[in-house]
């Protein structure tokens, strides 16, 4: 896979491995997150891309719940990073929920210790990842969310690297057989 190309060109990179999904409600966005979450393991990195109000935090709620977490998932826009704990079936992994919304400058991003989040043993989800596109690891799952109507959203899953291609293939199989 052409990581060099995708690095500078997400939200959308053309790849045969990507998956588009139309969500008709907040509940559906959470359910797809839940399915995805149940497949995640240590060191996985998910980047959430898209404007206000598309359901990025709701998707994270689903992912955390799929990882067996009972913690309350809220927007980390102001606190920058929330930490949750996965359930015993998922090894009580730490879940890092970061948000770069408030960070405009590269210098600030390099100062908050983001690298420590994805180089650890936890699952790392980053909202507003557009703001640090070229500082993030090349291997990741990019999920871009877009408004379609008041309630409908398009979720596009674009895998970068083998691990994430497998993940998306697995997700596809789980949803469409």
């Amino acid at each position: 896979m052409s990581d060099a190309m995708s690095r500078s060109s997400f939200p959308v990179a053309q790849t045969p491995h990507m998956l588009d999904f139309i969500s008709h409600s907040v509940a559906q966005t959470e359910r797809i997150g839940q399915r995805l979450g149940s497949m995640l393991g240590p060191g996985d990195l998910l980047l959430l891309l898209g404007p206000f109000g598309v359901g990025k935090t709701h998707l994270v709620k689903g992912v955390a719940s799929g990882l067996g977490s009972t913690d309350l998932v809220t927007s980390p826009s102001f606190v920058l990073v929330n930490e949750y704990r996965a359930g015993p079936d998922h090894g009580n992994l730490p879940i890092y929920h970061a948000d770069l919304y408030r960070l405009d400058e590269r210098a600030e991003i390099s100062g908050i210790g983001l690298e420590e989040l994805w180089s650890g043993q936890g699952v790392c989800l980053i909202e507003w990842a557009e703001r640090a596109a070229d500082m993030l690891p090349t291997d990741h799952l990019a999920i871009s969310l877009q408004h379609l109507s008041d309630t409908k959203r398009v979720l596009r899953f674009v895998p970068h690297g083998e691990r994430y291609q497998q993940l998306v293939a697995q997700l596809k199989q789980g949803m469409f057989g």
Partner: protein
Amino acid sequence: MIQERSDSQTIPADFTILALETSCDETAAAVVRGGRTVLSNIVASQLDEHRRYGGVVPEVASRQHMLSLVPVVREALAVLPGGWNDVHAIAATSGPGLSGALLTGLNAAKAMAFQRGLPFVGVNHLEAHIYANWLDSSAQHAVGSGQAPLTFPLVALVVSGGHTLLALVRNHGDYQLLGQTRDDAVGEAFDKVARILGLGYPGGPAIQQAAEGVQGAGVLPRAWLRDSYDFSFSGLKTAVLHKVQERQELEAKVAPKRAANERERRPPPAAPPAAPQPPAAKAQASSVTPQFVGQMAYAFQESVVDVLVTKTVDAAQKFGANAILLAGGVAANTRLRAELARRATVPVRFPPISLCTDNAAMVAAAAFYRFDAGVQSGWELDVNPALKLG
């Protein structure tokens, strides 16, 4: 580990605490006497960084806390004639917050306490926000029963950029979390809606200003989450976004017609009419009128204030609170203060604005009552980025 003090003597009235607060992106230190008199209250972002460091200092960095901490503590201690000799105890925020940022402040505080042989206690950042209401009553704005001392139980509404919660305060250090946000914090909603409306930063004051004197605004939805004291503001944010987009699309359709009409009326067109703005300019309100922006700001603020006030007043009645405490950065919102004071059946207290946003004086105030109850933290106290209230 928390150690109970053996003697039951209360601590002296001039007990002086040095407190540090580094839970997020402000490096703060304060000296507070007797749990209420603020002798100094230093926040790093207010310092002349160029003078101190000879360069621009990025705000968000745990490394930055390390650079700022020593000058901030020095400045906080400068008010004491005896310097360190006048400090009786040290406190620091231990959570919730960014782990790296918290570690810097907590470890520095522990090191200073160890080196000076002073008692030390870790404080919950959310608890500290509530305790801003105990600071210096002369500077405090009170509505209702003047400066009457606070008697438990109390209901506290903590509203800031990062936090939104309603708590029952039964006694010093005894909390019951009644509700919290399930998605966006109130301050965050203000900030994001301000961006959607093309208003300035920070969003809170910008929305408040845009909403002033507005008439004819519609009504935006309120997420009541019945039978719960929890809050939700992300749906409201999305509702504003969709209203703005609708309006932009409408303007884009109307603009070319308007331009054509103008052309007919004024025969020699100097230049071809400007192309209509594509509705693609999302999350920006450039093509909507200031009147529309004002109406959205007004309707948004009313929706937020209505939900916050209704739940807070309800909780105060249900739990028999003697007063309502407002805390956190959004406590600076005058509409929230006024509406809460109007609808509450008990006195409403809120700190001066300088003590609403993150600061270390509130940490010292909370620490005072911990020490007074004979509570200290051990050296093994660690940060807890996900620390809860109660």
